């Protein structure tokens, strides 16, 4: 693992975003990553559940303070970062369903959600959460027609840490470009 990344790796967590928000409010530094091996209450927009068993890649990044418009742009660019990482590593053609989802074979493989805490006109905390179906063998009946994992597509396991490193590096780069 890249030693430059600050990763808080939790075995089981309600939601990596919840923990990241909590830590950010307590002063943990920007770009700290909360990585959960599994989530009990992983969620997407409007609280929709995100299936998060062991094997998948679930992480949230504490973002540096940014303009709210830049954060929206970053959410979209984060999808590009994930899609690009998947394409380069596995020679697959992910489809970005703007702004939050990435599809493979018309099924959801990744969800991205930015959550902000705002007081007055100031954005105090921004958390970028990513749930990526990597090494998941199967989905429950209600999801198997709409969700898919890399393992199902590639018929092999992938390296979650390597994907994490590459995605975070790409997101950092994107934010630098936005801020220029």
């Amino acid at each position, binding site marked *: 693992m890249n*030693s430059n990344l*600050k*990763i*808080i*790796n*939790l075995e089981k967590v309600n939601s990596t975003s919840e*923990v990241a928000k*909590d830590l*950010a*409010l*307590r*002063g943990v*530094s920007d770009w700290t990553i909360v990585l959960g091996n599994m989530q009990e209450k992983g969620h997407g*927009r*409007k609280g929709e559940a995100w299936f998060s068993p062991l094997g998948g890649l679930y992480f949230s990044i504490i973002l540096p303070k940014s303009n*709210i*418009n830049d*954060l*929206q742009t970053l*959410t979209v660019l984060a999808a590009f970062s994930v899609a690009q990482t998947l394409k380069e590593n596995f020679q697959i053609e992910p489809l970005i369903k703007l*702004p*939050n989802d990435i599809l493979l074979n018309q099924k959801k493989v990744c969800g991205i*959600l*930015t*959550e*902000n*805490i*705002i*007081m*007055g*006109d100031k954005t*105090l*905390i921004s958390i970028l959460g990513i749930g990526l179906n990597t090494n998941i063998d199967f989905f429950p009946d209600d999801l198997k027609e709409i969700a898919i994992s890399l393992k199902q597509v590639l018929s092999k396991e992938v390296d979650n840490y390597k994907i994490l490193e590459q995605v975070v590096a790409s997101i950092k780069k994107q934010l630098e470009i936005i801020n220029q």
Partner: protein
Amino acid sequence: MNLKIKIKGREYDVELQEDKDKVIVKIDGKEYIFANNGETSQIEKQDNQSEKGAKILAKNNNIKEIKAPLSGTISEIFIKTGNEIKIAQKLLTLSAMKMENEILAESNGKIKEILVTKDQKVKEGEILIILE
């Protein structure tokens, strides 16, 4: 709440405690106290790390209106008319620009009127809540 966190391969024991008007975070025995004394708030800590929490528990500035910081849709409301609220308390969630935004109270006060309902679309600058 007790957590074990791993940073760069090292494991830390973290204990979170809420005690009336303060939150105590113990990391490997080191104690960090986040206090809110009403008009102004501050963090007492044992080292020189910068703390976002200090900025969040900002000075009470007697704000009487809570406005939408951006256009979007009200997805959740956590308070009711007549509720006493404290600075930094979560008031509502606004889904906007494909992001979820928690709106916090800027000051202590009492809710006089809530001008919006769940799923209502609002415009940037629109008044959402009036405090007494």
